């Protein structure tokens, strides 16, 4: 993380202090995270379908900055649709740099996937951390992240995906991309064709968690073939009331914009979904083992799941 001198840090923090005061005055709650926030854990946020440049995106971005006071995440995963509409240089600033300025100034790293509304050329926009690649991989602590471009899943990308996961030595394997392969939103839902292409590789190499967006809601699925899927496509856009929960839905929120906070500490993964106004709308804990295990907040294991077709409440 970038370090600031005392004066510089004060200058950087001033807008956040001012925003905090305004937020409290407008009835927002500062997110009081229950995440452990262990010193050596990997902490990150997940956002998706955010790049509108409109007020809700800015609200979520401010809420993220507030959350970071208690939960100092160093990484933001973006599951695509990083920009909507015009994507000229000035638009990129208005739809990315400005809303996330406090996070960028604090040295938070962003790592984006491409959505269907993103201009392909945005892979070269440095703050998105894509390094000119439409699919790529990186590792943090004991986690291997694999980022895909689900707009075009060609044979080359599939081969790369297979080889990358095969070579991954990290304990946690997390994939993220734009189009969900499972989901219960009315507009799109899970993309069956992508599921047929990607799921065999995800299960073959023991991927534990998948983040996607595209549907403008928050949804956590029950384990599908032993994998925890999240849809986090409401960090700017929102399709209110679009969710049609089914037996595969574990938790859902489509009343307001939201983002996700995640902490990975050894074999444990903790997560919380926070709304635009700072309300916690979902939380839980996963334990990595021979198979993934789900815990409700503050509880011991409720379901020891098998690797195939496991589910939890």
């Amino acid at each position: 993380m970038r370090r600031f001198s005392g004066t510089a840090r004060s200058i950087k923090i001033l807008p956040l202090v001012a925003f905090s005061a305004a937020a409290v005055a407008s009835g927002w709650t500062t997110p009081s995270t229950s995440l452990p926030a262990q010193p050596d854990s990997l902490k990150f946020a997940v956002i998706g379908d955010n790049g509108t440049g409109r007020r809700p995106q800015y609200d979520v971005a401010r809420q993220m900055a507030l959350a970071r006071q208690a939960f100092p995440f160093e990484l933001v995963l973006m599951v695509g649709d990083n920009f909507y509409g015009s994507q000229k240089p000035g638009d990129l600033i208005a739809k990315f740099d400005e809303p996330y300025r406090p996070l960028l100034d604090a040295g938070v790293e962003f790592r984006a996937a491409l959505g269907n509304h993103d201009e392909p050329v945005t892979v070269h926009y440095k703050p998105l951390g894509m390094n000119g690649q439409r699919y790529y991989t990186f590792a943090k602590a004991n986690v291997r992240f694999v980022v895909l471009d689900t707009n075009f899943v060609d044979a080359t990308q599939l081969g790369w995906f297979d080889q990358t996961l095969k070579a991954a030595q990290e304990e946690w394997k997390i994939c993220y991309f734009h189009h969900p392969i499972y989901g219960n939103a009315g507009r799109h839902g899970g993309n069956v064709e992508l599921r047929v292409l990607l799921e065999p590789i995800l299960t073959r190499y023991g991927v534990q968690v998948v983040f996607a967006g595209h549907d403008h809601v928050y949804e956590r699925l029950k384990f599908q073939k032993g994998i925890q899927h999240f849809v986090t496509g409401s960090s700017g856009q929102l399709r209110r009331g679009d969710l049609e929960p089914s037996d595969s839905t574990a938790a859902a929120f489509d009343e307001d914009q939201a983002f996700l906070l995640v902490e990975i500490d050894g074999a444990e993964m903790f997560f919380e979904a926070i709304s635009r106004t700072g309300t916690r709308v979902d939380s839980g804990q996963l334990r990595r083992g021979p198979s993934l295990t789900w815990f409700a907040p503050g509880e011991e294991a409720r379901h020891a799941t098998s690797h195939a077709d496991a589910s939890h409440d």
Partner: protein
Amino acid sequence: MRHHTLTHRTIDASVLTPHAQTRRERLPRLTHFALEYLLALPAGALIALVWANVAGESYFRFAHSLSFVVNDVAMVFFFALVTKEIVEAAAPGGVLHPWQRVVLPAVAAAGATLVPPLIYLAYIQTVDAPMFVRGWTVTLGCDLALGYFVMRAIYGRHPAVPFYLLLAIAANGVGFLVLPPDDPGRTVAFVIAIGLMAAAFAVVAALRRARLKSLWPYVIAGGGLSWSALYWGGYHPALALAPIVPFLPHAARDRGFFVDATPDATDTLSRLELWCRHPAQIALFLFGLVNGGVVLRGLETGLWALPLATLAGRPLGIAAATLIALRAGMHLPAHVGWRDLLVIGLVAGIGFTMALFFATSVLAPGQVLSETKMGALVSVAGIGLAFLAARVLHVGRFTA
């Protein structure tokens, strides 16, 4: 004309009422290939559409397991037959003979190929779907056989029909020329591909010079080398026989577009047709089955890009280019007027088979391909629009 076409075989003309006779005369006398083509691909696509929406996972597993065999191998037979029709059309008596006949339709085709991509690109910018940009070549796909049937159904034997054919052939030709290789960075493979294609041409030229009439040396040696060249070069190997077919010895005169070869035909090109007919029909059915499945839930505005571009862009492009051609001193074919050009444009807007083919060639599986394939299916609406336009404008069979 072959004596056992469906209508000739089953209906004795003497028992028809005058009205029925007139109506029958206006219907195109189609080859078995063309008639069954009209059924094979839509049947496959319809089954695929239902299957994908009822049991998606099993459909896509099936479709992906067969896509290479169908799209890159079996479709070789279909494109061999289409190329055969074009080669014959360039012979005396064909619509492409002499070449001076094609000048104005070629100019119209330029408009028909330029305007749809512009509309396509403008539309996807308007609806904020930038990932669709690479699908612009799909707008060049023009369903030649289906369009021919529609034109014959509207016009019977009328100069508008060859005008349409020339235009559709040109649009598809441009589409094939601009299809990008799937991995343009493979320089070594590209050099090998050029070598293989040169070898293919050398072999078939030698066979032709030796006046060899047997089909198989052309298909196996020339076609095999050509398929390998296209495959290694990153181009679509389904076109493998397209550069080979022009070398096949053929009859001196064209018998007509999509007119069956007689079973006793001895020229090599006709033998190709007789041999390819059934494999091509099976290939078309499977092509529809493997590529026509789209899950209807979740489709977005991108699916309208293709039908809008072709159904609006073709008539506009044809009209604009024809206007320029007329200003430059060219003349429309006799009996072809502006109202006919609108109908021709709408028929040429039917992408269907060729749009599906181009889509699977330039787009990898994913949301963009799904929506583009659906757009290809929607472009069949051009049939209804063309009939409606013909009726409103009183052209073809609707002439007052």
